[in-house]
Every structure is written in C-alpha cells, then in structure tokens.
C-alpha cells in the first residue's frame, strides 16, 4: 500500500539519521537537503536505502533534480505501487 507524504517525510528523516549518523530536527518538505549537511554521496545512499525499503527504483536522470525533501518525496511518491 502506498505511503502518505507524511510517512515518506518521516522515512527520509529516519533514513538520513541512520546514514549520516546525525539527528535532524524540524525537517519539512521545503528543507534543502544540502543545508542539512548531506553531500551528494550521502544523498545517493539515502535514496538507495529508501528505494530498498519501499521496493522502488528512481531513474538515475532524476537524481540531479532532487534538491529539496519535497523533490525526493515527489520522486518516491510517483513510483510507489498503488
């Protein structure tokens, strides 16, 4: 069953915390990912982990366009099975 945007936001937060080993407070969809101190390598790892957890695949050509948490949630939401 498809997860809600709120659930996907929470999943990003827990995944990012685990991968970057840092606690994040008050992440919203408008948060710019790089401003959380997450570099491109960390971003790839977070995307990969979310893909595995949700059993989806985000096309590589979309990755460069993911700047905010909203961008990532949009990309994930489109690929969830209905």
């Amino acid at each position: 069953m498809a997860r809600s945007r709120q659930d996907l936001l929470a999943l990003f937060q827990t995944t990012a915390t685990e991968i970057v080993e840092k606690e994040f407070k008050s992440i919203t969809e408008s948060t710019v990912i790089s401003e959380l101190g997450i570099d491109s390598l960390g971003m790839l790892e977070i995307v990969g982990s979310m893909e595995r957890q949700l059993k989806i695949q985000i096309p590589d050509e979309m990755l460069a366009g993911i700047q905010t948490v909203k961008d990532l949630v949009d990309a994930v939401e489109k690929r969830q099975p209905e």
Partner: protein
Amino acid sequence: MGSTQAEVEVSYDVSNEFFRLWLDERMNYTCGIFDEPSENWHTDNLEEAQVRKLDWHHKSARLSPEKRLLDIGCGWGADLEYQAVNKGVKECHGITLSRAQHAEIMARKIPGVTASVCSYVDYKPAQKFDAVISICMMEHIARPEDARSGKHIELYRRYFQLAHEWTNPGSYFSLQTILRNRFPRTRKEIQDIGFCTYKIFPGGISLRLEDVVMAVNPYWEIMEVKTRRTDYQKTCQHWLDRMKDHKSLIVSKWGQQVFDDYDRYLSTCVYAFDKHYQSLAMYQLRRID
C-alpha cells in the same frame, strides 16, 4: 579533451608482462563472447571467447583480404593480428596512445600490420580505409566532467565525423563500448566504481547507449546493436581468477599495491556487470555516403 597520453599509460602500462599473465594469449583487454544463443553456441574458455569476438568484428566490419582496415585504439594488437593472420586482411593499421602497447605490436612483426602512437584527434591517414574497428576506445574520448556538463556528445560526434572522413564510401565500422547503466546506491559500491574510474582508468568514462545513438548522426547508420552484459561479467571473472593464480609472482615483481588495486578493480567489474551498473554493447555501423 578525453584521456591524455599519461592517463592512457596509467591504464595500460603497468607492464606488458603483467597483463600477459592474466589476459588471454592474444592480449585482448576487452569483452569476449561466451554465449551466442541464436547459434546455439557456448564456451567457457577465454581464448575461444576472444576469438569469437574478433570474428564478430571481422564480419561486422565486412572485411575481406583486399580491404584496408583501421583499428582505433588497437591495444596490444590482438585484433590487428587476428584480421591479418587469421583472415588474410592485407593492410591493417592501428592507432594507440600507449607506447608500451605500440612496442608489443612492433615486436609481433606481423606482415601487413602497422601501428602508430597517436591520438585520434591528431591522426591524418595518407590513404582512406575501407573498414574501421574500434573496441572499447570510446571510453577515453570524454572525461567524467564532460559527461556531467553534457559536452560528451559533441566529442563523440567529432570522433564519428573523423572516422567518416578517413573512410571510403561503402565502409562499415564495427564498434564496441562499455555502457554505464545504473548508478550505484551504496557507499562501498560508489567508492569501488569511483576507484575503477579515477585510479585504473583516469580521464575516461563509459558511455550511455543513447550517447552513441545520438552521436553517430549524420555520419554512420546503426545497422545492429547487441548488448553483452553477462559476457563481460564472465570475461572479468576469468581475468580475476587468472590474476589471482599469479599472485605471488605479481607481488614479487610489481608489488602488493598493484595486486590489491587490480584485485579490487576486477572484483568490482564482475560485481558491477552482475548488478547492471555496467553493460557492454557491440554495434555494426554503415557509412552514410
């Protein structure tokens, strides 16, 4: 633009004797063909797989004895030697940026085979050719930063334009390129593939299939494309196994670091082909006259 001579020599000049230990007997440093389901053909032998590859290129380039062949990025001369000796092609010329590879070709003293140390951007043939073969040389045309900025397509297109200028009407071009399919997603995978890209093959990057489809126009028509991902996985596994069989000798002659680097690189290749991060394509192109 693309790999410099120094970078090419990082990739290929550890020592000819080092590569001879684990490549096939002809020293093909590219994918062989282990399976041809359409012909019910299979081998587990690396030497046979490499000959099958060279024969594929012979047919794809529509070679015959009286034709003049240009091999762009000719390596240690495996293809040049096969076309000249096994297929009777009377004039075969190769270009490479590696001085060590060129020395090997000269040492083989194959009648009808000539070679020059030259970048394709500087090459000016005295006479046009009737066929071109280029096996995994395009990976040296663009740098990773060119691919990120989008400049790579024009670099590839210039390469196809030059090959067009160097050939007679009616020519065929048999091409082989590694493909980058999907970007890895774990830190270890990214670091290992980055190691292969920046340490073993500095200045180069594999192609996307659509890069070739775009860049061949208006010079060459794609007549056939075949991907061979599992063939390259098997090829790399053979190389890795052979290299490990010679571990003591490699460590004693070239050091533990060389062994460790090539162990990591070849292991990563086997993994990357298995996971679809990389693939390989073979193309038959016909000159648009």
